[in-house]
């Protein structure tokens, strides 16, 4: 005996779980049970013996059953036919009397007819018996055991034993038999979970499941076959073939799962997950195909949701028949409500006709609403973020009120009516609106069968009839609620609740119920319930990965709305796009289809790395150096952090990267930032540039993050609109110290709360601050040939700490010191800048030729160790660009001409041949 507690398997030590002794008779110790499990006080075991003979017999039994049913059916049809034949024969003879009293006639045809009816009765019996005899999980009582039997002697005599094979139907049994036959065919000594998994793949349900997971069945089968062929083929005779304990354990775990999910019988779906968990090879193969346990679990849940939906729908339609079709209750005691009908929308009636959407995975919230009402509250207010599904919960309540299965007594035979506030107040003065509302409440009160619902409760707050101090619309409703004259449900978003509702009378009167955002698995299940409709409408398919990606990516990158709505929107957009692009074919939407939509909405690259992009990232340094000269250390550091970001090798809670670029003016700090934006983001407009010298005052903080009066902050609004961007903070040291504190939070948590209380996500941006602080020191030390590392250390410890707090300096991922430019660098920079000029000329159809000596001369003239590359830019502007402009205006330069920069850096024009 191993262990004696629930949920641990007990194996017979004599036969090691096989249930048979050496001579292939039942093991004397365990009586052939072999292995079992205590569950709810019952001892579970697998009692069905599988052998080739048994498999054959089961097939014979199936065949005979079918044959008997067929014979009975043929007799019945033949009986009907013979009566018709007899009637036809006698009709032509024209003897009406004979036909009307056909049973009094003696004829072989009539006899056959009566035999046919007997066969019909037999068929009715067989059908009912078949339903009754179907393997079924019966609920059993929980037996609390203080001590478990601790030897097989006791176990053999233990009365509460359950052979779980009785809960397996033929379809599932045949899978186990297939696994057995497979092991026999391969001459393996044991039927293992690998055989079982392999056999499962033949089941339709499992192949659909793997199709949903976007796995190619052939690929999976090939991998399995190669693993199966590696198993030892040592079996000599069938009698030696054993069913491995792991397989029995899988079957028992499958049963336990089916029992706990209150399923009818143990199906292949119950066996899949235990099988994957039990076999390391299967788990590894699936992991190679990017499938983990959680994915399988959620895909199985998808199947269940679909089955549940169909079952629920049937039950719903059956019960909905009984709900009155009119505004009256069943006893006709209600009173007509003409005004309310005008300003309201009958949700229960809409639900009866199936016009409302399904409410999935929200049973807990619905029960909470009922409980609040039962405990005496007349008003219940649902609050939560936008998109968490407050209205859907209300619609779920309307559906419950139609079936009247689980609703409290006072909600039976009632109508749930949504008050259309827009219609109530439109075209009316506040006083009129109040009068209307009062009349409506009177109607509700008299009718007695109405529960009111107000969506966005804040809409009725602040509408007041007269001078200061007079009642406003929501107060009117609040007083009536307090008097208990009506019951009311309402919704409000969190923001509106705290801004408008919380302090109002109506907010105090109603019981608040917070609706939380569903967690990932819940959201996936809600989405799974919507898929069928989307697929049917757009004639496409969704893989499980697509659903998971819609939830995960929208949770990560879209912050203005909540789950599940934002994920549903992504799915809808994907479906419409895929349907448009793949007309006529049944396209399977995968993770990348979802990623493309997210990318379109946020510009964040979330799709899988393509080969081209991977190559670009690998050669990022080279790419940057096309626009930047030298500054190797800076370029390397930036390139590495970008690669980490794109391959998701970073913590998700901070910006992609944050750098502080230090160095004298004109050495390329800003240029590097711009180059990154050009190379990595591919777009220049994803650069958010802030000149920090404009934020020196304390109140400039408002300019940056906005104000509670509604003014949008420059920084927060820019990042909100383009979360995937590069934020360049020029001359960072000049900003007000309070602004430094803001960036402490940005770099630490990756988020910032703006003036309106909205949280802005910075985890997809790159923050680069540039500073000239200590540039004189850098120049001096470079001349002295001090190593860069030493310069950097003393800069951070002495120069920078005078301006910024050490914790801020510490937050940067990297502090990079830019070296002053050498004369050699200047030549390279001059070449880059002239390449820009050449580009401009090319657009006008002209060429540019530069002599080496001319380039060197420009570099010499433009070189100024103090101001870096800036004087060079000015020089090129004055000496080259201005001159070219003049020549174009003076018609000295036309299309196809070549501009030459000669050895003394002067402009010459080489005229092209006239055409």
């Amino acid at each position: 005996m191993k262990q004696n507690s629930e949920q641990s398997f007990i194996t017979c030590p004599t036969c090691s779980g096989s249930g048979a002794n050496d001579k292939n008779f039942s093991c004397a110790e365990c009586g052939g049970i072999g292995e079992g499990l205590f569950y709810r006080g019952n001892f579970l075991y697998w009692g069905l013996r599988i052998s080739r003979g048994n498999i054959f017999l089961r097939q014979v039994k199936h065949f005979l059953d079918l044959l008997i049913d067929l014979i009975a059916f043929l007799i019945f049809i033949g009986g009907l036919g013979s009566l018709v034949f007899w009637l036809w024969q006698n009709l032509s003879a024209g003897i009406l009397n004979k036909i009307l009293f056909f049973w009094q006639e003696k004829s072989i045809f009539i006899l056959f007819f009566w035999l046919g009816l007997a066969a019909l009765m037999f068929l009715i019996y067989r059908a009912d018996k078949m339903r009754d005899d179907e393997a079924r999980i019966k609920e059993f009582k929980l037996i609390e055991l203080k001590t478990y039997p601790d030897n097989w002697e006791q176990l053999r005599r233990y009365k509460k034993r359950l052979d779980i094979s009785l809960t397996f139907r033929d379809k599932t049994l045949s899978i186990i038999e297939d696994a057995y036959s497979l092991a026999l065919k391969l001459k393996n000594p044991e039927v293992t979970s690998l055989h079982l998994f392999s056999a499962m793949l033949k089941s339709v349900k499992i192949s659909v499941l793997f199709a949903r997971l976007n796995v190619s069945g052939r690929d999976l089968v090939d991998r399995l076959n190669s693993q199966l062929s590696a198993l030892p083929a040592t079996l000599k005779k069938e009698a030696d073939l054993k069913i491995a304990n792991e397989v029995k354990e899988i079957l028992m775990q499958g049963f336990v799962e089916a029992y706990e999910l209150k399923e009818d019988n143990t199906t292949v779906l119950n066996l899949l997950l235990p099988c994957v968990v039990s076999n390391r090879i299967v788990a590894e193969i699936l992991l190679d195909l990017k499938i983990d346990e959680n994915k399988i679990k959620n895909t199985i849940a998808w199947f269940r949701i679909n089955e549940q939906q169909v079952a629920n729908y049937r039950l719903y339609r059956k019960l909905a028949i009984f709900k009155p079709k009119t505004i009256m209750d069943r006893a006709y005691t209600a009173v007509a409500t003409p005004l309310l009908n005008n300003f309201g929308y009958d949700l229960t009636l809409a639900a009866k006709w199936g016009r409302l959407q399904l409410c999935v995975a929200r049973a807990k919230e619905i029960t909470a609403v009922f409980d609040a009402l039962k405990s005496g509250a007349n008003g219940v207010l649902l609050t939560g973020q936008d998109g968490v599904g407050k209205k859907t919960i209300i619609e779920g309540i309307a559906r419950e009120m139609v079936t009247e299965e689980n609703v409290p007594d006072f909600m039976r035979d009632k109508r749930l009516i949504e008050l259309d506030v827009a219609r109530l107040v439109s075209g009316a003065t506040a006083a009129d609106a109040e009068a209307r509302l009062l009349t409506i409440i009177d109607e509700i009160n008299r009718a007695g069968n109405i529960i009111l619902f107000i969506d966005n409760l804040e809409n009725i707050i602040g509408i007041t009839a007269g001078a200061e101090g007079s009642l406003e619309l929501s107060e009117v409703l609040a007083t009536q609620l307090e008097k208990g004259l009506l019951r009311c449900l309402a919704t409000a978003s969190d923001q509106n609740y705290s801004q408008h509702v919380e302090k109002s009378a109506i907010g105090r009167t109603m019981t608040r119920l917070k609706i939380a955002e569903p967690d990932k698995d819940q959201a996936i299940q809600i989405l799974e319930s919507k898929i069928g409709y989307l697929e049917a409408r757009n004639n496409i398919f969704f893989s499980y990965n697509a659903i998971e990606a819609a939830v995960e990516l929208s949770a990560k990158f879209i912050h203005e709305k909540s789950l599940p709505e934002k994920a549903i929107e992504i799915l809808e957009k994907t479906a419409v796009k895929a349907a448009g692009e793949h007309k006529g074919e049944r396209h399977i939407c995968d993770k990348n289809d979802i990623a493309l939509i997210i990318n379109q909405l946020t510009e964040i690259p979330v799709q899988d790395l393509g080969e081209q992009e991977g190559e670009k990232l690998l050669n990022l340094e080279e790419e940057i150096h096309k626009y930047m000269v030298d500054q190797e250390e800076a370029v390397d550091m930036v390139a590495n952090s970008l690669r980490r970001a794109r391959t998701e090798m970073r913590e998700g809670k901070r910006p992609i990267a944050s750098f502080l670029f230090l160095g004298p003016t004109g050495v390329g700090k800003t240029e590097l930032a711009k180059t990154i934006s050009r190379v990595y983001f591919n777009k220049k407009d994803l650069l958010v540039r802030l000149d920090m010298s404009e934020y020196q005052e304390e109140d400039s903080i408002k300019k940056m993050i906005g104000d509670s009066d509604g003014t949008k902050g420059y920084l927060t609004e820019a990042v909100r609109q383009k979360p995937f961007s590069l934020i360049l903070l020029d001359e960072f040291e000049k900003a007000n110290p309070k602004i430094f504190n803001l960036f402490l939070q940005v770099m630490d948590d990756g988020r910032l709360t703006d003036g309106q209380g909205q949280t802005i996500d910075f985890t997809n941006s790159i923050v680069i601050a540039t500073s000239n602080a200590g540039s004189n020191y850098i120049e001096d030390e470079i001349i002295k040939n001090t190593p860069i590392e030493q310069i950097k250390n003393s800069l951070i410890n002495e120069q920078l700490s005078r301006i910024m707090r050490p914790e801020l300096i510490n937050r940067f991922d990297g502090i990079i010191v830019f070296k002053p430019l050498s004369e050699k660098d200047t030549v390279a920079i001059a070449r880059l800048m002239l390449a820009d000029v050449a580009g401009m000329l090319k657009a006008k159809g002209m060429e540019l030729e530069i002599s080496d000596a001319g380039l060197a001369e420009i570099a010499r003239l433009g070189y100024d160790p103090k101001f870096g590359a800036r004087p060079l830019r000015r020089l090129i502007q004055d000496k080259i660009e201005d001159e070219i402009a003049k020549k174009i205006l003076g018609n000295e330069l036309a299309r196809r001409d070549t501009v030459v920069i000669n050895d003394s850096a002067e402009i010459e024009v080489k005229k092209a041949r006239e055409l």
Partner: protein
Amino acid sequence: MLKNSNITLSKIFADIFKDIVFFPFWWYSLGLAKIVKGLAGFVAGKEKSLALIVWIKNIFVPMYGQRDIQGAIISFFVRLIQIIFRSLILLFWVIIALIIFWLWLLSPILIIYMIVLQF
């Protein structure tokens, strides 16, 4: 029919034999109970959709909230007519159910009688 216990050929044939022999017994025991339950459910469903009991319970409650004397009197008579009318419809369904019940009960005897009559 056999359950998924360990099968032998003799068990299979015994089961088929049992099916044929015991089927008339089933007809008058379990089968009869099931048909009665089914018909009762059918009649209850019809009653629920006619709301007859709701009408009877509310016979003295004025319709449409008309609580004045005239309203109450009119309401009483309207309800009475409604109740009679709805009872007739329900009665029709009960008769249908009874016919089915008797058919179930008598059909084996009838069929055997008719077969015997042929010889």
